[in-house]
């Protein structure tokens, strides 16, 4: 069963050059600049559980805590280039420094146990059947200031609006192609383009109701969009459970920081789905369609279904009759009105898409065409997710909204353009090359970490099918402090906020911060040693 991996983005950068680093060590707390943070936190000095006499009274000194905390050209989320703590991180650093030795480890362990018994795990493919792992979790929250968040929120709203207009346009009049803003062949050669969607009116013209964009922070401190993830983005359950565990782990700190809440995500999602119900179905029956228990994101599917109070269905639970979708219940067949789909296009309906799929429901697409059921995200949204189409998003924003993009793209070379291809082929060892339709870190060449042979192989593939590849510079994205052993070390992080689009755009303040937990690693994918952090957006 080929199912989408929950964390689709692959983030790569060269390992930071250890040799050239000059470690900056914070000697004392008070060399941080006077903070202008509204609510400096009272340090959390009293551990919730009686500690052993061995560790009592011994505080972790900041020197030990930051013992090996190198700063270099990458943006550090906690410290400025000269080593001074950023104002909003001061209370966090003080709290941690004020905890008795081992207390951090103890809290980490209790959080891990909590994840395991709650079964907050994902399935690892390609290993023994049923291999489950907890999603590694870092104890220190990632902080985002109100101003930073405001920009992200406006930027994502703008971007989603434009992307949605693009999908609607391409699947109807295709004006943007006629006006030559985007090359026609780029769109029609995309493997996620679904000609079955041509001329089809989707409810409220919403193609993408649920989005999880991947953002990176560059060394300028600016956030950029790496990927849009418009098909079946996942990870939102980790955002929600991280928060719950975090509130338990650092209650006083959390309270003192004034963190904006995210817990209403499920309710917003439900309202979004309800707003997309077919006409004349005032009490819509909303279900979540999952590929099943072997899908790596299965925990999330059950979690969201339970939080929303809707049925979690598999393809085998659904039948269609006279273009109406029903689910099999103990009390006979019950009509289904809205399907929140977590199954890829290809596997959704064997009559229309891949005939060998057993995960979907035969006849689903026809029922959708007839307007008897809403399926969201719509089919064919992967088109706007294509890594080559991605390069045109800023142009889409200007074309449809007549605005400048608030969140920039990562610079992207289109290999179907002769000039850009020549440049890329000449500089393969400096660039990252990605296949346009792949995700999860597959089909990539990381120039600086590649061998001459790999580069040769990729060059050949690029020449053979230039449309299938794009290239990007190796990105120098930001790092945040993580608890490694009993001290802090910086690790690379990205940010995936979750955007909902029904009546209007809704973004819960926060998201999933993914961490490359391996030292020097740039890969945040959970399949490859990635973990996550709670993300606190401050008031």
């Amino acid at each position, binding site marked *: 069963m080929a199912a989408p991996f929950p964390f689709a983005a692959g983030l790569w950068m060269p390992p930071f050059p250890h040799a050239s680093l000059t470690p900056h060590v914070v000697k004392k707390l008070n060399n941080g600049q006077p903070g202008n943070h509204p609510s400096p936190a009272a340090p959390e000095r009293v551990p919730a559980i009686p500690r052993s006499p061995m560790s009592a009274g011994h505080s972790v000194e900041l020197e030990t805590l930051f013992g090996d905390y190198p700063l270099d050209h990458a943006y550090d989320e906690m410290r400025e280039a000269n080593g001074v703590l950023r104002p909003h991180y001061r209370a966090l650093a003080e709290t941690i420094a004020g905890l008795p030795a081992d207390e951090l480890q103890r809290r980490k362990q209790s959080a891990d146990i909590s994840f395991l018994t709650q079964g907050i795990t994902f399935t690892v493919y390609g290993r023994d059947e049923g291999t489950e792992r907890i999603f590694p979790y870092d104890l220190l929250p990632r902080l985002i200031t109100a101003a930073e968040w405001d920009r992200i929120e406006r930027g994502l709203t703008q971007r989603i609006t434009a992307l949605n207009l693009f999908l609607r346009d391409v699947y109807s009049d295709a004006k943007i192609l006629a006006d030559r803003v985007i090359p026609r062949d780029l769109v029609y050669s995309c493997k996620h383009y679904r000609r079955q969607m041509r001329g089809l009116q989707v409810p409220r013209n919403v193609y993408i109701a649920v989005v999880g964009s991947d953002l990176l922070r560059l060394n300028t401190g600016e956030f950029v969009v790496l990927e849009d993830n418009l098909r079946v983005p996942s990870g939102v359950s980790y955002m929600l459970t991280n928060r719950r565990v975090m509130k338990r782990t650092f209650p006083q700190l959390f309270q003192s920081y004034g963190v904006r809440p995210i817990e209403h995500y499920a309710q917003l999602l439900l309202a979004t789905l309800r707003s997309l119900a077919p006409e004349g179905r005032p009490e819509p029956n909303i279900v979540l369609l999952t590929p099943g228990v072997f899908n790596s994101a299965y925990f999330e599917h059950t979690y969201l279904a339970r939080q929303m109070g809707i*049925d979690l269905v598999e393809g085998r639970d659904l039948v269609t009759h006279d273009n109406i979708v029903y689910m099999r219940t103990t*009390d006979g067949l019950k009509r289904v009105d809205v399907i929140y789909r977590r199954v890829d296009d290809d596997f959704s309906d064997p009559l229309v898409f891949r005939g060998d799929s057993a995960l979907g429901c035969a006849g689903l697409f026809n029922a959708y065409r007839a307007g008897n059921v809403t399926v969201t995200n719509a089919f064919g949204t992967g088109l706007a997710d294509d890594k080559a189409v991605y390069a045109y998003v800023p142009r889409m924003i200007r074309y449809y909204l007549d605005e400048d993009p608030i969140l920039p793209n990562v610079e992207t070379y289109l290999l179907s353009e002769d000039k850009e291809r020549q440049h890329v082929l000449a500089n393969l060892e400096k660039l990252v090359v990605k296949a346009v339709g792949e995700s999860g870190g597959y089909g990539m060449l990381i120039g600086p970490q590649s061998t001459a042979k790999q580069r040769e192989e990729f060059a050949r593939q690029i020449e053979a099918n230039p449309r299938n590849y794009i290239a990007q510079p190796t990105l120098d994205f930001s790092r945040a402090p993580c608890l490694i052993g009993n001290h802090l070390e910086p690790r690379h992080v990205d940010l995936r906020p979750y955007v909902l689009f029904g009546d209007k755009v809704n973004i819960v303040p926060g998201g999933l911060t993914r961490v490359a937990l391996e030292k020097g690693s740039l890969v945040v994918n959970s399949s490859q040693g990635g973990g996550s952090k709670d993300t606190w957006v401050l008031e």
Partner: protein
Amino acid sequence: MLSRVADSLYWMSRYLERAENTVRQLDVTMSLMLDTGGASDELRWKRLLASLGKPDGMEWSDSLDAMARSLVFDSLNPISVTFCINGARENARQVREEISSEQWQRLNRLFHQMHSPHAQAQFSASINDALASVVDGIHLFQGVGDSTMIHGQGWQFIRLGRYLERAYATATMLEVYQKELFNPQERDHSGYQYLEMVGLLRCCTAFEAYCQVYTADVLPDRILEFLLLNRDFPHAIRYCVDTIRSAIDSIQNTGGRRSPEELTAGIGRLHAMLGYTTIGEILNGDTAAFLHDIREQCLRIHELIYRYYVHYSIQSALAV
């Protein structure tokens, strides 16, 4: 409720009941073996396997420890405790949104307990403690389920699974034991026969309950009467059948578009059979056949549940 979900809840519950049954019977058999004067170890072990449904590939060997381990930890052996708990958890995992988080956490903890390296060590240190902690885990799950889950259709399917499995397992066990119970060997007329009979009761956690009803005067026909016909004891077959009946009624009351006539008839028949037969009549007739008939009827009820709630044809459902 989705048919698939009902199916999973039903099997989750059946698997846990099966695990508990294996644990209890193993525990009793192991402790009976401490008294060497009665039946031989081999006989007892074979009896245990027969009453667990004669699993394939489990033969008597001299290594009692290895056999017991296999019954507890062998994840390929379909009556082993681990196999059943894996099955229960796998089913629960497919209906995570239907059971409460508290329930899931108990079951998940039990699962991890069985798979942790400590489990083997604890088993070596004290079999009794190890087995008791498994039963504790199962009881905790059931109690948490009863107090945190909506007592709607899902909960009724859980009851259905638990009591159908229990009725079937108890009937199987009595069928195996009844021959010895009423035809004791000569040398058993010392305290050993008493131990065996108490063991049988303890397999159903019924010893204390039995004493409350009949005093400690343990007699074969009274044991049979108690485990078959008592209407108030949760491990008696009659009680199980009554519960199955009330669960089906509740499921019908919350949905009830289609009337499961054959199913209610099947359960009604078994219910009447246990309600209107006396122990004297059973003992005068063919006891083994009577017990066997109960098992057959349980199987039939299982099939009918499937036909009405899970594997119905779409034509029949659209026709309503």
